[in-house]
């Protein structure tokens, strides 16, 4: 069968000359699935003989599979910890593995409130809403930040993710850093069970639930929020709505993870930044590659694919399909440099 992909940007090849062949497999975060579909398709346009397959089994299983040698690269919403990095030497040789920020996406705080498209909220208020302290939309804490917005007395229904999720982890990380007073829970992948609220499986699940429930609010990958209202988050003195640039900027200004190898681009996001125009609730999903592969063929394929992903073409293809934020020019340069180090073991 032939599907006629009209939006196939394969011609303007960024890397390689189209002479590679073979199959490489990756697995991991489901958040990357839409973007990965676009990359896999786009890469086919660059390297017609090469196939990439990606199994969206989840970040944890992806890393597990990568470490077990099942996948040659992994997608993950969280960076590997020291222990995992160490065990990566089994598959990747003594130089281990490294992270590239492949997929950056703002996490929107989205709500369903008749007639309201956008609200200004600071971190404390967001935390108070999600912990259940603020229970109605016309609460003073909300109203005071939103002059001129007609707020109904609808009760607030908090909807969170039922499954373990990188989105939840990033969102709680933001709350813990920016509103430590109000968010007294840990940074977690599983929503704290002490907070009793509605929940649903997956991004589509929570968005669907909020869309169906008047007065509901959730956090979700911004690409999926559709027509829901979204929150502009207070950073410094201004309220910043989510956007690709603002998200990208947050990653740009992040600090490298302590003790990481030079080519490892795992970052520690600065959630309570004051920097203007930065949207701090960002999900960085990494691609994890080996520094060295067992054979040349794999190394070449992985290298070509990794380069394509961070290339301008790759990033814009993904943006067009998945709605994520493309990485900035400077990040791309660093990433290409890291990728160029991919070699063969021994």
């Amino acid at each position, binding site marked *: 069968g032939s599907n006629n992909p009209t939006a196939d940007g394969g011609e303007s090849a960024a890397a390689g000359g189209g002479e590679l062949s073979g199959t490489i497999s990756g697995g991991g975060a489901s958040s990357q699935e839409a973007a990965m579909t676009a990359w896999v398709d786009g890469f086919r346009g660059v390297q017609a003989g090469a196939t990439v397959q990606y199994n969206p089994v989840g*970040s944890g*299983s992806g890393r597990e599979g990568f470490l077990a040698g099942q996948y040659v690269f992994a997608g993950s919403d969280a960076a590997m910890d020291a222990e995992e990095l160490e065990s990566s030497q089994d598959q990747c040789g003594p130089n281990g593995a490294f992270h590239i920020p492949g997929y950056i996406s703002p996490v929107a705080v989205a709500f369903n409130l008749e007639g309201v498209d956008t609200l200004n909220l600071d971190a404390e208020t967001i935390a108070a809403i999600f912990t259940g302290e603020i229970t109605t939309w016309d609460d003073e804490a909300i109203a005071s930040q939103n002059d001129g917005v007609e707020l109904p007395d609808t009760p607030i229904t908090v909807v969170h993710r039922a*499954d373990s999720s990188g989105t939840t982890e990033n969102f709680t990380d933001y709350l813990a850093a920016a509103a430590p007073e109000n968010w007294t829970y840990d940074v977690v992948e599983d929503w704290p069970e002490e907070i009793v609220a509605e*929940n*649903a499986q997956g991004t589509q699940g929570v968005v669907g639930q909020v869309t169906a429930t008047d007065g509901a609010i959730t956090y979700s990958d911004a690409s999926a929020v559709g027509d829901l209202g979204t929150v502009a988050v207070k950073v410094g003195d201004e309220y910043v709505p989510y956007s690709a640039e603002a998200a990208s900027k947050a990653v740009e200004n992040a600090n490298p993870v302590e003790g990481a190898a030079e080519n490892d681009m795992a970052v520690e996001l600065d959630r309570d930044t004051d920097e203007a125009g930065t949207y701090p609730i960002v999900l960085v999903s990494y691609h994890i590659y080996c520094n060295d592969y067992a054979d040349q063929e794999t190394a070449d394929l992985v290298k070509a694919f990794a380069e394509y992903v961070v290339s301008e073409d790759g990033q814009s293809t993904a943006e067009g399909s998945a709605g994520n934020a493309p990485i900035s020019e400077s990040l791309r340069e660093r990433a290409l440099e890291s990728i160029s180090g991919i070699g063969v073991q021994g």
Partner: protein
Amino acid sequence: MTTTTQQSALHDPKSAGGRAGDKIFSGITLTAGIVILAILAFVALYLVIESLPALTAGEGELANGKTSFWSYVGPMMVGTLIASGVALLIATPVAVGVALFISHYSPKKLSQPIGYVIDLLAAIPSVVYGAWGMTFLGPLLVPAYRWLSENAGWIPIFAGGYSQTGRTLFTASVVLAVMVLPIITSMCREIFVQTPKLHEEAALALGATRWEMVKMAVFPFARAGIVSAVMLGLGRALGETMAVALVLSPGVLSANLISAGNQTIPAEIALNFPEAFGMRQNELIAAGLVLFVITLVVNMIARWIVSRHKEFSGAN
């Protein structure tokens, strides 16, 4: 006539060849049994090995933040048992009723197509059941939940509010009930129609009404089969992941059927496995092992009940 060519007829070579057929066939069936035993023992072994780290983990070693493994699975065990218990409570009478309808009540011409239609329920993938429960059934039940909460709130299982979205343990149970219904129905139906005509007629000739005939001849004959069917249904209900994961809005155990909260083991595994690694994976598999034990205990009880009446088996 007395022969000295010892055992010529009883040991003739042709017969020996046939006997080999018997040996081979029984050997094959035995091998199949051994294969099953091996596979299943492997699965059990795998589970035990993978569960050990979680089962033996000391305080603070668990990845879910709980102090002990049992405080983690305990509530989910209860949730699982409630969900599948309620599902069976709903499904069993309906399923047996449908099976009876097909085998003894419906017009003979209709029974085949009706059986086919009910079997259709088994054709629907669990994801679809999940989606249906989440988007259609849940909201449909909300008014009933509201009513129950307002009027029967004093009953513990309805106490403490109700869910606005209908994604509750009861909704999950209903979905499970619909999923196990065809399993129980189909097996019961097949057994009901096997009831010897002789015994049905014996009952009717004594002046039994149709229902009395069913009680006298059909149910006793089918007892073991019904139990087996229910056990298969229970197995499905206990082990169902995707539908529950989609329908239920999980949370801590409240044993309240009509509000959000509670969790089942398979749904917990399905929801958390993708992001799990290391100890978290061991915990989830150990939770699976616990589910095994539950299934086993329930089945053993069922077998015991059936075997008590073995003497009165319907095949004689």
